[in-house]
């Protein structure tokens, strides 16, 4: 293992953090220098995330442990030693989330270079963007509960600032306040739960806590608080009120990374359910709670998308509904975790694969709708129309993103949704029916939006529009490439990156604990 791979978990956090603080200084040299610097940082981060993923997936399910300020202990510990420093612990699932975050950070940074060119305040914009990226990487890499809370709050502050970044829009100020209030509340729930756990066991390290967890009444209260807080931050119905506002009001490329942020909270939820609590609670009950949340999220998200006339908000509700599919897949996996039938792992694979696919599709849709709104000068679908005549490529990209998200073959959304349908049908046919019907409804929603915006006669809005500059086209094309490649060769990706991630959650609790505390 090279030194770079060894330090990758911390560099993934430290480099964007360095970028976040240095960007305003380098911005004084000019926009070109700043964009080059930010571009180099995200490229380095993407390289490190891939390197880490290769190393972790190659290790065959043994998590990598990194000790901050190390040099004292060697891991795994032996002879009843207790981890006292902050640890980063990277298993298959963390590495997988790192890949998603790197993909979205890379594309949205390069999209932003063109998207934000004429606007002022770019230094702060990229500074907050890098801070958010650092926070997301921190959330998915950390092996320490309190450290998780700190990174959760870093993402909250950066994300809410980005939602309210356009201070001249009154709606974004409203959304920003709402988002920050909900994020703070969810963070405090998580902190209270961490306090309850620490008070009982005296550990903050996830592996050490998992090892000593008893499943007492206090643990259950802590679990309830963690579940509420993290589901709230992931935007699951009925705590979703902030999510469409946030996705809709943030600048388009930042909506994409906000989705990655929601997924990081979802990761935290899964980490807590599978690794921290695992068998100490009734996994069947917890699984069914997730499934109910999932069905509500899918249903409410799709129905609310149906009645929107604001293009960005419509996509935002689509993004909310997709969180439900991830919860459904993983919920089915959790519900049957005790008996471990074959289809449980399939459900986990579906749910986790859908995270990656959702990030790519929703990212593409937000980019495309941002480009459309920028060109047409309106967000209202009723005032658009006929944009497809001049914006050929954008309309094609939007269409690909929409059908992929709705789960139409041969795109990637179908690959993951099919796994979810298949596995949830085996648990209960009712679940699969709701999931399939909602997907069809989502397709209808996007067909309506596509027809309203791109087809039909030329309208006032479409008089002087054109496809955006190459700086915005290339990131969209890159995401289209991801969507098509994942759709055509799902087997390869499921085997090599999704299955290790699913197994790390579903079967990897002992491996996670042993990597720190020793067998």
């Amino acid at each position, binding site marked *: 293992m090279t030194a770079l791979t060894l*330090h990758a978990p*911390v*560099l993934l956090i*430290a480099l964007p*953090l*360095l970028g976040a*603080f*240095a960007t*305003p*200084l380098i911005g004084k040299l000019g926009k070109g220098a700043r964009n080059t610097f930010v571009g180099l940082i995200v490229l380095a981060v993407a390289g490190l995330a891939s390197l880490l993923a290769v190393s972790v997936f190659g290790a065959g399910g043994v998590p990598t442990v*990194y*000790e*901050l*300020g*190390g*040099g004292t202990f060697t891991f795994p510990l032996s002879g009843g030693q207790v981890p006292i420093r902050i640890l980063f612990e990277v298993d298959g699932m963390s590495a997988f989330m790192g890949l998603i975050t790197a993909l979205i950070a890379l594309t949205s940074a390069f999209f932003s270079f063109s998207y934000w060119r004429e606007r002022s305040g770019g230094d702060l914009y990229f500074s907050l963007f890098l801070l958010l990226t650092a926070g997301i990487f921190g959330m998915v890499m950390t092996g320490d509960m309190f450290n998780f809370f700190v990174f959760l709050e870093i993402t909250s502050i950066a994300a809410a600032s980005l939602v309210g970044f356009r201070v001249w829009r009154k709606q974004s100020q409203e959304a920003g306040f709402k988002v920050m209030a909900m994020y703070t509340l969810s963070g405090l729930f998580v902190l209270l739960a961490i306090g309850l756990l620490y008070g009982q066991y005296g550990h903050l390290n996830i592996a050490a806590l998992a090892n000593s967890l008893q499943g007492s009444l206090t643990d259950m209260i802590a679990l309830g608080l963690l579940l509420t807080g993290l589901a709230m931050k992931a935007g699951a119905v009925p705590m979703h009120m902030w999510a469409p506002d946030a996705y809709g009001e943030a600048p388009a490329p930042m909506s994409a990374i906000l989705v990655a942020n929601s997924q990081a909270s979802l990761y935290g939820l899964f980490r807590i359910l599978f690794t921290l609590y695992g068998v100490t609670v009734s996994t069947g009950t917890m699984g069914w709670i997730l499934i109910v949340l999932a069905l509500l999220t899918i249903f409410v998200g799709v129905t609310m998308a149906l009645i929107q006339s604001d293009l960005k908000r419509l996509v935002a509700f689509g993004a909310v509904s997709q969180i439900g599919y991830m919860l459904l897949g993983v919920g089915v996996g959790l519900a049957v975790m005790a008996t471990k039938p074959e289809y449980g792992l399939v459900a986990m694979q579906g749910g986790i694969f859908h995270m990656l696919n959702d990030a790519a599709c929703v990212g593409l849709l937000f980019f495309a709708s941002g480009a459309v709104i920028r060109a047409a000068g309106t967000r209202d679908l009723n005032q658009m129309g006929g944009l497809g005549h001049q914006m050929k490529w954008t309309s094609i990209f939007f269409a690909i993103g929409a059908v992929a998200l709705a789960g139409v073959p041969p795109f990637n959304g179908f690959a993951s949704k099919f796994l979810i349908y298949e596995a949830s049908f085996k648990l209960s046919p009712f679940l699969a029916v709701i999931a399939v019907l909602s997907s069809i409804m989502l397709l209808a929603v996007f067909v309506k939006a596509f027809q309203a915006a791109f087809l039909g006669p030329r309208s006032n809005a479409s008089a002087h529009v054109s496809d955006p500059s190459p700086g915005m086209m290339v990131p969209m094309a890159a995401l289209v490439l991801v969507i098509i490649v994942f759709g055509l060769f799902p087997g390869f990706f499921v085997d090599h990156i999704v299955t290790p991630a699913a197994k790390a959650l579903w079967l990897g609790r002992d491996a996670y604990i042993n990597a720190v505390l020793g067998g």
Partner: protein
Amino acid sequence: MKNNGMSIIVRTVTRFVYGLIILFGFYVIMHGHLSPGGGFQGGAVVASAFALLLVAFGSTGLKGRLNLHWLQTMEEVGALSFLALAFLGIGTAFFYNLFANSGGFLFGASVPTGSNAGVFAAGGLVPLMNWAVGLKVMTGIAAIVIIMLVGSRKEETE
């Protein structure tokens, strides 16, 4: 007066006190590795002196003493120097305390275990990090206070 600043009593007292507050803040930062306090607390104390100036003299009174642009630059410098200090030990691990117990002149003294009178020259990177954090916090909070004042003043004139 044009609602700018407060009465002569407040302003006179402020003139006496604000230097002492800043001095106390620096003391708290300096002894962060030995006594309660540290970078954040000391920085907050220093920033409170700036806030006091702002309240007593109004925004015009602060002009020429504190420049928002300069404050924001110094905040970035504080954050970057903290990160740079953390990167120093990357040969072993991020945040590795390179200077502790090294015997060198930069806080490298070793400390006896148990109760002691406090060794100022100990702590390695920790006192340096306290200064970095202190710089960031004092300038950051001062900037927040100034921005909020400017924001609320605009509203009054509207």
